[in-house]
């Protein structure tokens, strides 16, 4: 295209510090690179220069939330309620999935789409992938099919293995993110700040579970199907070019509710609760059933457990 030399970061001051970064961005904003960007629909300088989510003051956070609500109003013509509820004290979430019960009906997939405002078609984004596997081979990705089509389920000789974000204690995606747009919260939920995501997809290639999904095109979400109960780090509508993933329905679980997939599962294969509470369902599962984590050898240490109740 042209022979323009790209700016080298080190020449532009100290980008490691917040001031350095802001100074750099402000300097860059004056340049031609951003002149094009600011012409984009929905782009504002304030969004672009916003501090990291965890450094926002209560006042700034309130403004950010109001802004999302205003954006929703403009884009969908609907009133929404956006919160940024933090993790509860003394709570670490754990999720259990009973492989011996799941029948592969995919109700969870679509309940999740509805609850979390995913793009419906082009791109179609599902946070849960249900794999059909052979009983003969056991849990083996070499004999797994995510695109099974059946008149009725379960099919003989098959079992079903739903995969979603495993909320790793040692998350490779967080390490891979160059902008710290994704991080692990105190209650164990790995969240994404869509305003800080630059869409490089490093996290997607780092995730061994295929749990992260990219908005390759402008998301398609009918206004009538918008879930107005939203969380800033969860199900608020995403722009094109950002990565998204399961957040254990952060907008529900942080308020004490079960996730949408737990509530829709017709076989009760999905269990959710506080790992620090010895009376919780997930603890009872771990204490009395055969439990394993997916791809244990990668030492990602998921907070998502598979188990066999029979």
């Amino acid at each position, binding site marked *: 295209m042209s022979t323009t030399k790209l700016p080298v970061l080190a020449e532009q001051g100290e980008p490691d510090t917040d001031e350095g970064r802001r100074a750099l961005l402000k300097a860059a904003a004056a340049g031609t690179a951003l002149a094009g960007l600011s012409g984009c629909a929905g782009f504002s300088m304030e969004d672009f220069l916003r501090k990291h989510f965890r450094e926002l003051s209560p006042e700034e956070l309130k403004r950010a939330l109001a802004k999302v609500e205003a954006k929703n109003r403009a884009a969908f013509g609907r009133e929404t309620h956006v919160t940024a509820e933090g993790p509860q004290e003394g709570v670490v979430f754990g999720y259990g999935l009973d492989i011996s019960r799941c029948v592969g009906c995919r109700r969870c997939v679509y309940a999740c789409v509805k609850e979390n405002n995913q793009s419906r078609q082009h791109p179609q984004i599902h946070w849960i992938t249900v794999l059909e596997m052979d009983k003969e081979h056991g849990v083996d990705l070499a004999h797994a099919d995510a695109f099974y089509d059946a008149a009725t389920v379960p099919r003989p000789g098959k079992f079903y293995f739903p995969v979603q974000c495993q909320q790793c204690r040692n998350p490779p995606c967080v390490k891979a993110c160059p902008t710290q747009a994704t991080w692990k919260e105190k209650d164990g939920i790995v969240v994404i700040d869509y305003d800080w995501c630059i869409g490089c997809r490093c996290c997607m290639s780092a995730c061994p579970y295929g749990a992260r999904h990219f908005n390759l095109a402008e998301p398609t979400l009918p206004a009538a199907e918008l879930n107005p109960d939203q969380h800033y780090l969860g199900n608020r509508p995403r722009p094109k070019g950002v990565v998204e993933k399961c957040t254990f329905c952060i907008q529900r679980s942080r308020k004490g509710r079960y996730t949408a997939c737990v509530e829709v599962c017709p076989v009760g294969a999905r269990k959710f609760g506080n790992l620090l509470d010895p009376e919780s369902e997930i603890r009872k*599962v771990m204490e*009395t059933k055969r439990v394993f984590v997916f791809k244990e050898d990668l030492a990602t240490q998921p907070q998502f457990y598979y188990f066999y109740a029979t």
Partner: protein
Amino acid sequence: MAIWSRNVRPRIELLASLAALALAASPATASEPAAKGAPPAARALEPLVQANTPPFSDGIFPCSGCHDPKAKVSLERRQLAFHDDQQSVLKHGEERWCLDCHDAQNRDVLRSAAGKPIPFTESYRLCGQCHGDKLRDWKVGVHGKRVGRWDGEKTYFLCVNCHNPHTPAWKGVSDVVVDGKRIVSPTLELLKPEPRPKRAEEQRQ
């Protein structure tokens, strides 16, 4: 300790302890809840966990609408002239028949193996007589389904919300409306899966 106290004691446990109190009126057992740190009156004020409504066929309950409690009932095992829906699918072990579980005189309740009445809303106690391992798992939330709050009030699905007691092997469930209430009821057909996800090449417009 603060986080434990948020957990409400399931209603079934409360019922069980109340039942234990009622059955054994000796002072020794009466002191048992006090040992747990709360008098029965205080514990009754805790938010209760609800069990889901049993999925009766529309308009069939109360059974005493047709069955006169005073009528003389033959306990002979026989083919019935009514309740074809249940009789035709009855496949629960080898030897079961109606009056093993339904009370012969008061049809509005079930009947334990020991002859004690069990209301339909607590049918899990009847099922648990044989399926004790499942009842144990269900009470702690490992078997079966709950909706509501992970940290508080939740609704338990009864055994019969998912398993037809007359033919208990799980096939599928569907939402039904009975007496204006939306409840889950077992079906006799397997579930049809939701559409498969689009492959990458199908996503291109």
